[in-house]
C-alpha cells in the first residue's frame, strides 16, 4: 500500500471538517474522492500534504507514518500536490515556477530532460516560459501547477479540484493528461473532484465523501451507474 489513511480527523478551531476518514491508495492506482462542495475533500488532501494539521488518525506513506512531519519533508519523500486554484507563484516566471518544483533535487541534466518532457506535455508552457505566472490564464495556471508537481517525478500526486473554473473542453484535456500519466508512466494519483463523472471515468476506484464522512466506495465503473452518486450530489 503506497498511502494508507486511517481514521483521519481534521478540525479548524472548534469546527471539525472531517470526521474520521479511512482510505488507501495502492501503487500505480488512480483513486478519486468525489463529493459536493464543502464535503471536506480539500481538507483531506491538505492534511496528507501537511498543510493543515490533522487532529487525530494516521497517515502512512510507503510504510512510514508521516502525519507528524513537516510539509517539506513529505514533499521530499515523494508526495507532490496540484493545489486548488493552482496557486502558482504569481511573480515568478513559468520556468522559475517549474524550477521550484525541483528544489533540493536539482541537477542540470535532469532539469533539462524533465523540462523537455513537460513542455511537450503542455506546449503552452514552453511558449510562456519567460512570463510571470500571474499573466497566465486560469487554464494555463492549472497546467503550470500540474507541471510543477510532476517535474520532480513524485511517487504520489495529489490533485485538488483541477476542474474548478475551467472550461469543459480544458477539463477534458487535463483529465486525459492525468489518465495518460497514470496508464503510461504508472504514476499514482489521488484525485479530489467535484466533477464526479469525469473523475469516475478516469479513476479505478472512488470514494464518495459527504459532509466529512466517506459514505461509500467502490470500483469507478460501477459507481458511475450508482444512483447513490446522483443522490449525494442532487439531494434526491
Amino acid at each position: 500500500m503506497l498511502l494508507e489513511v486511517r481514521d483521519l480527523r481534521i478540525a479548524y478551531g472548534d469546527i471539525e471538517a472531517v470526521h474520521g476518514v479511512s482510505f488507501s491508495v495502492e501503487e500505480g492506482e488512480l483513486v478519486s474522492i468525489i463529493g459536493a462542495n464543502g464535503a471536506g475533500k480539500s481538507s483531506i488532501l491538505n492534511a496528507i500534504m501537511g498543510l493543515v494539521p490533522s487532529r487525530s488518525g494516521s497517515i502512512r506513506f510507503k510504510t512510514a507514518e508521516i502525519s507528524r512531519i513537516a510539509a517539506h519533508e513529505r514533499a521530499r519523500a515523494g508526495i507532490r500536490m496540484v493545489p486548488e486554484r493552482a496557486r502558482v507563484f504569481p511573480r515568478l516566471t513559468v520556468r522559475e515556477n517549474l524550477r521550484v518544483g525541483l528544489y533540493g533535487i536539482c541537477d542540470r541534466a535532469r532539469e533539462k530532460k524533465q523540462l523537455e518532457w513537460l513542455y511537450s506535455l503542455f506546449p503552452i508552457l514552453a511558449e510562456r516560459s519567460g512570463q510571470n505566472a500571474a499573466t497566465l490564464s486560469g487554464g494555463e495556471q492549472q497546467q503550470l501547477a500540474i507541471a510543477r508537481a510532476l517535474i520532480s517525478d513524485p511517487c504520489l500526486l495529489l490533485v485538488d479540484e483541477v476542474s474548478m473554473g475551467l472550461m469543459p473542453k480544458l477539463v477534458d484535456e487535463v483529465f486525459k493528461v492525468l489518465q495518460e500519466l497514470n496508464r503510461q508512466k504508472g504514476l499514482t494519483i489521488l484525485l479530489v473532484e467535484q466533477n464526479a463523472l469525469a473523475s469516475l471515468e478516469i479513476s479505478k476506484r472512488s470514494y464518495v465523501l459527504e459532509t466529512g464522512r466517506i459514505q461509500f466506495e467502490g470500483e469507478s465503473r460501477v459507481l458511475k451507474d450508482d444512483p447513490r452518486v446522483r443522490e449525494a450530489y442532487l439531494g434526491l
Partner: protein
Amino acid sequence: MDEPLLSLREISMHFGGLKALDRVSFDLHEGEILGLIGPNGAGKTTCFNTVSGVYRPTSGEIRFRGKRTDGLPPHRMAALGIGRTFQIVRPFPNLTVLENVIVASGLSCYGRLIPSCRSWKGRKTREEALEILARVGLEIQAGQKAGLLPLGNLRRLELARALALKPHLLLLDESFSGLRHEEIAQQEELVRKTRESGISILLIEHNMRVAMGLCDRLVVLDHGRKLAEGKPEAIRNNPEVIRAYLGKGGSANAS
C-alpha cells in the same frame, strides 16, 4: 403577485477579464424562499454580494421594494431592510452573544447623531435581543463570548443578528454548511419559521437535499450565467443542471 420584492435585471459583474456574472436576471416575490444554486465558481456568492451591496455590479439594475439599490453600500442595504448571514461565519468574537445581536438592533440609531449617543444598555433593547435569541434557541448562551461558540450556534447567531434588523428580505449564504445532521434539521425549521413570520428569503445552498426541500423556487447558475429557474422538481430533472453538477456525460444518466 404584482411587483416583486427584489428584482435583478441583466446583472453583470466583471473582475478584470473574468465575467463572474453574465447578464443574470431573476425576481423574488414577497413571502418566497428562493434558492440560488450551482457548482463551485458559478458566481453565486458574487451574485449575493451585488445584492447585499458589497459589490457594485458592472452593469444591470437591482430593485428592492421598487427602489433602485445597485451600488449602495452594505450599511444602506441593511437600513433598507436586507439582512444577511455569511458563508464563513463572521461573529464579533470578543463581544457576547447578546451584544452581537444588540449591534443589529441599533440600526435606527446609527444614522443619526443624537440617537447614536444614547445608551444601548437599556432594558428594552436587552429584552428584545433576548427574545430573538430565544427564537433561535441561543438564550442560554447569551452571556458567552461569541468567539467561543461552536459552528452550529454561530450559524444560528448570524440568523439572530439578521433577524434583529427586522428585515423584509433575508440573504442566507450557505447557512447549513459544516453543520451536523441534527443541526441541519433545526436550522431548516428555523428558516421555515422565519418565512412564516413574513420575511422573504434568498439563500445559497450547496446541500441539495436542503435546497430542494426548503425552497419554493430555485435559480441555477453556472459559469456566471443563469442556467435554469423553476420549482425544485423541474430543476432536479433538468438535464442541463445535472450535467453542470455531475460533469460531462451526466445527461446519459438522467432518467
